[in-house]
């Protein structure tokens, strides 16, 4: 796949949660190595999009088509989508008592490797990579030996998501409000990691309200989600305008 070729194609995606139709007809494309920002008022369905693409059992796709790296995504189950290269960072990552972080991540990395016909990493090799990645993210090495998210603060859990992102190296990473709970150093780490992975070909769909972060990420596209559809698409200037005028004003502008 060459750069600028489409990695993710979403066409007329409709999603229901419970009996509520949250996404009506969402369509967009993300090219390989590009970064798209998704904005929208609270409750507009931004998180729903990520969870539906990841295959969460409570988010029911009622129509549309999704293509990831040339493959039909919707018939795949959750782990198949992950192995196809889709990563979703969790807003509130759960803890897993008794399971060490490095064991968990290694199991995940090897599951993906195996599905690609690559040999699994042994504990020793993996630990070396994990330590390097933790160090680049400014994370204490001790985090690797602790049970997954056990006793981690919100910000620490987000950093743990970044650690997993850097070791899994997915084709597409959906980062849902990765900035919440993060301090200045954390945000810097996000920008650095995203930049480095993007240079290696990972595409990003970043959900955020935070203009400073959006600007630092240098997005290729900015989209606004409103009433279940992509109402507007533009570049960084769209984000800056929304930040100035707010969502209500923006939707009035479109209608008017």
């Amino acid at each position, binding site marked *: 796949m060459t750069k600028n070729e489409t990695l993710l194609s979403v066409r007329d995606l409709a999603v229901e949660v419970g009996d509520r139709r949250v996404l009506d007809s969402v369509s967009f494309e993300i090219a390989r190595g590009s970064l798209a920002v998704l904005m929208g008022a609270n409750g507009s369905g931004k998180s729903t999009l990520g969870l539906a693409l990841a295959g969460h059992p409570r988010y029911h796709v009622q129509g549309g088509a999704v293509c990831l790296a040339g493959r039909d995504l919707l018939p795949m189950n959750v*782990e198949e989508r992950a*192995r196809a290269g889709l990563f979703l960072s969790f807003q509130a990552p*759960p803890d*897993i008592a008794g399971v060490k972080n490095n*064991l968990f991540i290694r*199991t995940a*990395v090897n*599951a993906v490797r195996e599905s690609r016909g690559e040999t699994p990493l042994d504990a020793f090799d993996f630990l070396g990579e994990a330590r390097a990645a933790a160090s680049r993210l400014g994370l204490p090495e001790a985090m690797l030996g602790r049970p997954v998210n056990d006793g981690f603060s919100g910000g620490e859990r987000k950093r743990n998501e970044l650690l997993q992102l850097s070791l899994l190296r997915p084709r597409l990473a959906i980062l849902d409000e990765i900035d919440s709970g993060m301090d200045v150093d954390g945000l810097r780490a996000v920008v650095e990691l995203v930049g480095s992975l993007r240079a290696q070909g990972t595409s990003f769909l970043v959900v955020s309200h935070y203009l400073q972060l959006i600007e630092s990420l240098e997005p290729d596209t900015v989209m606004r989600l409103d009433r279940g559809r992509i109402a507007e698409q533009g570049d960084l200037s769209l984000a800056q305008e929304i930040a100035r005028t707010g969502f209500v004003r923006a939707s009035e502008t479109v209608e008017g």
Partner: protein
Amino acid sequence: MAPTEQAAPIARALEQPYRHGFVTDVESDALPPGLDEDTVRAISRKKREPEFLLRWRLAAFERWLKMTPPAWGQLRMEPIDFQALCYYSAPKSLKDGPKSLADVDPKLLETYEKLNVPLHERARLAGVAVDAVFDSVSVGTTFREQLAKVGVIFCSFSHAVANHPELIERYLGSVVPPGDNFYAALNSAVFSDGSFVYIPQGVRCPMELSSYFRINARNTGQFERTLIIAEAGSQVSYLEGCTAPQRDEHQLHAAVVELVAHDDASIKYSTVQNWYPGDEHGRGGIYNFVTKRGLAAGKRSHIAWTQIETGSAITWKYPSVILRGDESNGEFHSIAVSNNFQQADTGTKMIHLGRNTTSRIVSKGISAGHAHNSYRGLVRMGPKASGARNHTQCDSLLIGPNCGAHTFPYIEAARDDAVVEHEATTTRISEERLFYCRQRGIAPDEATSLIVGGFCQAVLEELPMEFALEAKALLAVSLEGAVG
């Protein structure tokens, strides 16, 4: 007894080829079903037991007649017709078994594969007659030599009755008297065979003893009797069972295990049992009703029970420790898994009698399917047990919406200075946790295995190393399909 005094008779006993002493002592076929005094006499006669043992069996039988089966367990089961059971049968001739692995149930072979059972063991476990030279002599001989050198006795119970009757007479029933409970009384009357271990003073047993090595272990039948004695300053680690699923036409397994540890002695008894669970409704599964008890008789003695129990239709057992010696210590680490329609009512009793005694209980119960898992534990501090301390950690993991976990802790402290700590947690494998694992590329069965492994880590760490890896595989297999 000093090591040198024992060496000669032991060496002689151990030199006997393994088939002798058990298989060939049996003269004729099975007794018809039913249990009366004549049955007990017949069993004792077939085994050529000394008079004291016959009298002991008969006394136990008299007690049993006056007892009724206990009904307080959190268990639903059909009443057992004791007159319909067979109390003695000759070990199955290997000639009637499958001729090769090709004749063995493929599902059984698949399980061996999943549990990483060594290839040469699969044949033996499946009942395929293997060449005696290949099987026992090469494996058994070297370890028997090592044991003989230090004076350790490790043989079948029947063998011990014939060769060390004085030890049997002194210790049999000293920890679990026949009148202790209904199934112990039954066992005492009709027990078939089991293990006997004797560690002389000051000896650290050079290897882990495994009932696996005691050839013909699988033929000991339903009423197994085991006795382990550790003299002052000695140490032994004993492994019972194996992860490979054990089929048995007998539904009831009512074993009795007695451990005795003298001053500064240490006994570690590990069980990894994977009984055949029957069909997915539990029909035909094993009833595992066992009385296991250790007497920490000596000062600073130590007894540890570690168990992984899975597979039986009903598990009802409380490996316990009586802490009689001052500064003695008892430990109980357990993982009990129930799936489908299995039931487990299991736990431990720590009875503190001496001074400054300590006990530690770590119980992990995992329920899945429609299973019910109960922990029942008793911590009792007697009036003379000054400075007694106990810590109990009792955790339940529920998988799916139809299973149950129940806890019945009993604490009886007769003293003001007793320290008893009890912690209990209940968790589920939640949809969110599962989604998290899957979103990272981990399939549901593997995610369950990870989560269960993490949950059980504290107990898995206590297992002898060879068992720990097998145990993890066993947990994964017994919970297959429980999630996702």
